[in-house]
């Protein structure tokens, strides 16, 4: 029962956070001045009285002449209706919601792939490092993760491109697919695949295994870069939490009553050590989303991050704040879900 009270309280905290997020995005939209907002709607070639007329009409339409706190509610109402404004970048120009629908699937697919890699690489390494504390292997893991932690993510990306893409030539490192493979495919136009916009899934739907394989190969390097960028933190936390768990009385009891070491690690210790890292996954998600901005830029991978950098380079306020809002929403809701999952998993949590 008290679990439900905790969840209800957690949901209640969601409200001020959402209001705060939308308020920050709104405030930033307006801090740039009305001209930046109007620029998204007005044809730049328009001049003279025609331009003034258009400006006046839009100012009234967008309520830009109202007091700022009134404007917030008008803006919020539009956002809730799904009107997030316009974006104008070389890779996409149109409504922000359309851009998000187009780019989000790519970001989600490489982020999820990266999260999977973190899970598969990070947890065994963190557990291994704690179990063999101060051994050669532990020191190797610690030095490597310390080094990775100190590397800017673009350097990781470039190092992987050079090693696996340029010298070994085993993996492609630009775009989502080899353009020659999709030049004559009916469900792929102008760099957009239909119906889900995730090339890998669309190719499987249409039974085109060559394209699907190629799309998967293109996903590996961006995802691996993202994973390596966040991995060091995960290993560190997991190692510390595993060491703490191994020091607990019930582990000593298990050892004293003759449970084999392997079972102590795998059955008793590991599950409890992983629990704190679940909340740490909030940090991981933030790292993945922030990292996606750089990774997609380096690999020309058309996701939200690539769109954000393109918007930045083209002074496109709609794109930058649209992506800020959507990144914020993803992070808020993933941490909500993780907190609730954590509350279910760990009976010791204080409500």
């Amino acid at each position: 029962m008290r679990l439900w009270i905790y969840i209800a309280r957690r949901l209640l905290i969601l409200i001020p956070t959402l209001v705060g997020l939308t308020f920050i995005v709104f405030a930033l939209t307006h801090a740039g001045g009305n001209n930046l907002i109007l620029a998204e709607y007005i044809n730049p070639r328009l001049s003279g009285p025609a331009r003034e007329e258009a400006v006046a009409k839009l100012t009234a339409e967008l309520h830009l002449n109202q007091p700022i706190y009134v404007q917030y509610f008008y803006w919020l109402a539009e956002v809730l209706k799904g009107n997030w404004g316009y974006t104008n970048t070389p890779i996409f120009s149109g409504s922000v919601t359309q851009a998000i629908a187009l780019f989000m699937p790519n970001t989600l697919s490489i982020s999820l792939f990266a999260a999977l890699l973190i899970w598969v690489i990070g947890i065994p390494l963190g557990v291994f490092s704690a179990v063999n504390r101060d051994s050669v292997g532990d020191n190797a893991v610690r030095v490597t993760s310390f080094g990775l932690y100190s590397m800017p993510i673009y350097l990781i990306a470039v190092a992987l491109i050079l090693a696996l893409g340029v010298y070994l030539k085993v993996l492609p490192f630009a775009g989502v697919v080899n353009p020659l493979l999709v030049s004559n495919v009916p469900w792929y136009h102008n760099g957009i695949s239909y119906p889900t916009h995730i090339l890998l899934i669309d190719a499987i739907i249409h039974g085109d295994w060559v394209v699907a394989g190629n799309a998967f190969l293109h996903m590996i390097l961006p995802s691996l870069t993202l994973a390596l960028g966040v991995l060091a933190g995960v290993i560190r936390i997991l190692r510390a939490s595993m060491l703490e768990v191994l020091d607990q009385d019930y582990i000593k009891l298990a050892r004293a009553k003759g449970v084999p070491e392997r079972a102590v690690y795998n059955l008793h210790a590991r599950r409890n050590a992983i629990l704190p890292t679940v909340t740490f996954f909030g940090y991981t998600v933030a790292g993945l989303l922030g990292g996606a901005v750089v990774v997609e830029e380096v690999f020309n991978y058309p996701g939200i991050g690539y769109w954000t950098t393109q918007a930045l380079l083209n002074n496109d306020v709609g794109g930058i704040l649209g992506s800020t809002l959507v990144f914020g929403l993803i992070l808020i809701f993933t941490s909500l879900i993780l907190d609730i999952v954590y509350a279910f998993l760990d009976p010791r949590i204080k409500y």
Partner: protein
Amino acid sequence: METQKTEYEADRFREIKTSLSVFFSNKGAVVGLVIVLVYVVDALLVQFFPQALGLKHPYTLVSNYVNPVPQPPSASYPFGTTFPGVDLFTSILKAVRVDLGYSLFVVLLGAFIGTVLGVISAFAGGIVDEFVMRITDIFFSIPYLVLALAIGFVLGRTLDNMALALAIVWWPIYARYARGQALSIKEMTFVEAARASGSGGGKIMFRHILPNVLPPIFVQISLDLGTVVLVFSVLAFIGFIPNANVPELGYLASLGLNYVATAPWTVLFPGAAITLFALAVNLVGDGLRDVLDPRRRS
């Protein structure tokens, strides 16, 4: 009275000696400190005596459009050149000053705002506390890189604004941290004693609580500096500053990105310079954390 004072001083001296010996017994921290000092000396030389390093234009990049294509490392260009004909070695020497200075600015400003707000929030409690903590929640609900990018964009895409935007994004970490520290210190007996002897709220907050919150904050600063310098260079790398002609390590790395397959040194050398610095700062931060850890002191 006199003996009491010298005794106090002797205690103080012994404590500093223990701290130093804990720090210097950590080999990694000492290596880190040496590397950090090299970077600091370089930054100071570029700032005050650029002639000593043979730099004619210490604050801008020198392009050579006659030969813009990246050249491999050679005797005259120890780290090679990057597009457009920029000598990497001297540019990295210049860039250290920019990266070091701005990241220090970001961390110190963030730490200042955060610590003040955190201590006030812990001390005032109630609705003030709730309000400040909800604001930090909101800041944590947006990936910091994206938020810094958006704030910096609105402020205007310059180097100064980029640093300011990062500081605005960075203070909530310190607010939470300082609040946590202040909450535990608030309950200690010496604060109670101060209150019993008639000290006012402001005096307790700034004379008694703040000095005890600061040491862990300084450790946090040294641990954060490594992260901030990376984020700073990443923002410059993705092209935050239009038509930049500043020597900044992330920007330097981005210049050669189109040539990276044939000229890997264009990205690897600036990247390595920043990695080495972040690594050294992190090592020093780890050493400082040991100094404050009571388990290591005994």
